[in-house]
């Protein structure tokens, strides 16, 4: 089938920052994203798990964006602005997409 090149950006970030991040992404022209739950993890700031949390301050989510290559830089700059001071991981992968007219 006919596919097209695109980028898949995954931003792992604290739940409380989710809305700020997606608002920023939208201002940077990102038109689509999906949010995945994260159950727990470990990093420089130690290990955590959703079951060990009482506060909405502490869970994390993954924000996944499929985006055209030419828009990648705008997205990364917007994301970086929000993620910069916060814990979080940003990865970029090459993907092929069906129905590219959607992106």
């Amino acid at each position, binding site marked *: 089938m006919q596919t097209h090149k695109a980028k898949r950006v995954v931003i792992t970030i*604290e739940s*409380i*920052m989710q809305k*700020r991040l997606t608002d920023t992404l939208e201002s940077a022209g990102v038109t689509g994203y999906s949010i995945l739950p994260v159950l727990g993890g470990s990093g420089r*700031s*130690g*290990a*955590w*798990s*959703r*079951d*060990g*949390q*009482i*506060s*909405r*301050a*502490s869970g994390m989510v993954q924000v996944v964006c499929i985006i055209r290559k030419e828009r990648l830089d705008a997205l990364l700059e917007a994301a970086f602005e929000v993620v910069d*001071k*916060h*814990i979080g991981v940003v990865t970029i992968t090459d993907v092929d997409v069906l129905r590219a007219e959607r992106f």
Partner: protein
Amino acid sequence: MTGILDLALANLVSPVILSFVLGLLAALGRSDLTVPEAAAKGMSIYLLFAIGFKGGVAVAANGLDGTLIATMIAGLVLSAVLPFIAFAMLRVLTSLSRIDAAAVAGHYGSISIVTFVAATSVLEGRGISSEGYMVAVAAVMEAPAILSALWLVSTGGSGRRMDKELMREIMLNGSIVLLVGAFFIGAATGEEGLAAISSFIVAPFTGVLCLFLLDMGLVAGRGLRESRGTLNIGAVAFGILMPIVGSLIGLATGLIVGLSPGGVTLLMVLSASASYIAVPAAMRVALPEANPSVYLTLSLGVTFPFNLTIGIPLYVALSQAVTGG
């Protein structure tokens, strides 16, 4: 003195406290016992709704007495001022950075609604009545402390880190909205409304509180285990001294304002308790550099258990002794 000890003991040997202890021990012993997040959140919605509603019904029944406004203002002031005292104590007792100390201080000006709920249930058990609007005072005390903490960080530049969006999030956070909303529903529907739903919000209340505190114990225990070594002895001392100091300030304020003995106790509890939901969330947004395990461990791992087990009976005894109530 033996009176206080007896009281503390009686408080300790209650299903509510022992459930918390069970959770704590299970977590420290690395049991895989967990209460699902959704169930815990469901229970907290139940507790907030019930406590708010009952407060509103009490106000509808007794009318508003003149101390309402005064107590509200007193709550605002306490919440705004306590962080400065906490900050000063932290600088003396610990070597926390300015930012970490300010973040912690913000938690101690604000309140823990679960500690408040546990205290009302102790008061009820001992037949001590209190002003129904104290739940509204609790709501009022959640936010000002956050502003004080941010002010402490910016040493006077006030609010640089506070934007409108964060302000709105703090003021309209779910717990406050639910507590205050249920309060108004209770006030509007009164005894009749209570009759319609009392077998839901009154009868099973203590039982739900047990399971909720079981989960709090699990969370506090896991937090303590994960953050072993985060707190030194000075920090732990702060976590126990600060609630006592806070309660005494609350006591004085309550007496000045002219609350009933039960009301005085609740104001002491509010002053003594530290937030572990609303304030940590605000701090993660506004002060991401502050270390969350410091403030969460102190508030949830040290002060909350202290208040629940020793603090509450102590505050009850103190206020009874002073007011002669």
